[in-house]
């Protein structure tokens, strides 16, 4: 079954412990807890440092051990129902605390604090984290539906649709075959736009969609639109959120090509690097071109969907330099699980 946001957000409130962003969040929150505990425990600021080191000597091994064990169990944890899953996590943490505590006792010597106090602290921290992740997934689920709706609504500019239909109409008499091809592209494009786009889809399909879209734009703009594709190092099997590139190309045409009389180059460079997929889109930037709120909405929408799918492992950056506008997307290289 392909990875989908659907699964991530609804199936269980437990987070994906293998995800880098989740691990980072756990690390930050646990350390904040440890520091707060040290601050409460120490009578003066001078002893705060000493206290922190003492607490960290227990917390850090426990944290690292927990992250490893949770990552290993993540697949299983996310398959079982939420409450048993949460109970397992809590039990696991208490057990690990006991292990780290007794190992620490034998290595460093007797600790002043009894094991029960650590159990209490760890239980509190674990419950706080579970509540946090549960709330977070609840907050994200409605916005997920919304993001999906937006994917349907804000994607294609009506301007594009009507101009394309107009272009096809003009071809019917003189070049019926090109008109046929254009209508097929239009149908393909809208089939994709109206599909359930929550599941990740192969990159090759997204690129195919982009080519159909650009075919239609080429029909309208003719010589004014020059395309430079670099896809020889493209990982066709990588799974990406659907419509992650097409809206960006639409922006590129709308802001980079249409406002100019001279031919403009839009370049698309897609490649894999280690375990990451990169997509770099460039288009000329006209200083006078109106800043349409639509384009920022498209960027925000894609950013949100990337985050929903990949959390901190994906990024979208845009920059302006030398009259060229560039958008760079980095995604983890996720392959379809076979069998």
């Amino acid at each position, binding site marked *: 079954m392909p990875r989908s946001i659907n699964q991530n957000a609804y199936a269980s409130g437990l987070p994906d412990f293998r995800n880098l962003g989740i691990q980072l969040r756990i690390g930050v929150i646990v350390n904040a807890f440890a520091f707060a505990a040290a601050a409460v425990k120490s009578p003066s600021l001078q002893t705060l440092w000493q206290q922190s080191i003492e607490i960290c000597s227990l917390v850090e091994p426990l944290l690292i051990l927990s992250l490893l064990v949770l990552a290993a169990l993540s697949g299983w944890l996310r398959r079982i129902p939420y409450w048993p899953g949460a109970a397992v996590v809590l039990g696991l943490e208490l057990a690990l605390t006991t292990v780290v505590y007794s190992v620490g006792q034998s290595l460093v010597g007797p600790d002043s604090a009894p094991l029960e106090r650590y159990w209490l602290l760890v239980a509190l921290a674990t419950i706080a984290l579970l509540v946090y992740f549960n709330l977070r997934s609840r907050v994200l689920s409605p916005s997920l539906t919304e993001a999906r709706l937006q994917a349907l609504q804000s994607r294609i500019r009506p301007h594009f649709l*009507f101009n394309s239909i*107009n272009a096809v109409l003009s071809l019917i008499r003189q070049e019926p075959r090109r008109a046929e091809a254009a209508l097929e592209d239009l149908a393909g494009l809208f089939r994709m736009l109206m599909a359930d786009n929550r599941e990740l889809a192969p990159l090759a399909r997204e690129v195919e969609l982009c080519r159909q879209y650009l075919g239609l734009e080429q029909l309208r703009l003719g010589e004014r639109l020059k395309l430079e594709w670099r896809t020889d190092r493209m990982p066709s099997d990588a799974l990406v959120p659907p419509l992650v590139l097409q809206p960006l190309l639409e922006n590129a045409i709308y802001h980079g090509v249409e406002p*100019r009389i001279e031919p403009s180059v839009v370049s698309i460079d897609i490649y894999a690097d280690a375990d990451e997929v990169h997509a770099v889109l460039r288009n000329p930037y006209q200083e006078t071109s109106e800043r349409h709120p639509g384009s920022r909405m498209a960027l925000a929408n894609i950013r949100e969907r990337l985050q929903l799918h990949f959390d901190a492992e994906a990024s979208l950056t845009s920059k302006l330099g030398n009259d060229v506008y560039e958008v760079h997307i980095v995604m983890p290289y996720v392959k379809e699980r076979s069998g």
Partner: protein
Amino acid sequence: MNQDAKALRVVIVDDEAPARQRLHDLLDECAGEPAVVVAGDAANGRDALELLARELADVVLLDIRMPEMDGIEVAQHLQQLDKPPAVVFTTAYDDYAIRAFELHAVDYLLKPIRLERLKEALARSRSAPPRAETLRELARAPRTHLSAQERGRIHLIPVAEVIYLKAELKYVSVRTAAREYLIEESLTRLEQEFGERFARVHRNCLVARAAVRGFERVEEAGEAHWEVVLDGIDERIAVSRRQQQVVREFSR
């Protein structure tokens, strides 16, 4: 021949070739009343103005969204012609413009254009060209060019090249590094439209902020005043007493 003389002369302006082709096809079918001939077509605003200064036309089918100069601005410059044509705007989708057109009863056609609607628009179009005030209200952004009429031709002056605008008796003189033009507009309106680009230094003069090199204090018959030193021309412009705060504004 006699028929042709009375035929409606139409010019097509659209930046997309298929859209122009479509209008050609539709106009071919508009035979009969009124008889229609296509006097030419253009792919952008500048070409359109050149064509229309050369070819007499009754109606222009004018696309709104075009590169560098939009349809509304083209229509504004067309007013410089002795006999400006009637304008029918065309657009694929533009909520804002359509609301404005409805409000001001300006004729427009939605793409893809239906033959019936086109015929109706042409039948109505023998009426007057759009009014200047209406076009000003329709415009969403300041014009990219000013236009001056010279011997029946429309001369376009890129606003970016203008160094200063000075009100004369009936005209406003437009100074660029190369030369001077006279346009029939009011300085107040120009200030409203291009307020961000120009600064008022005198009751009768706006200078381009980008062209200001500095200010110089000048003594004349015991009276001291400021003068603007400009890039591109040697001429200097006096700063009136009432506009003296401009000097401070620039020195910041």
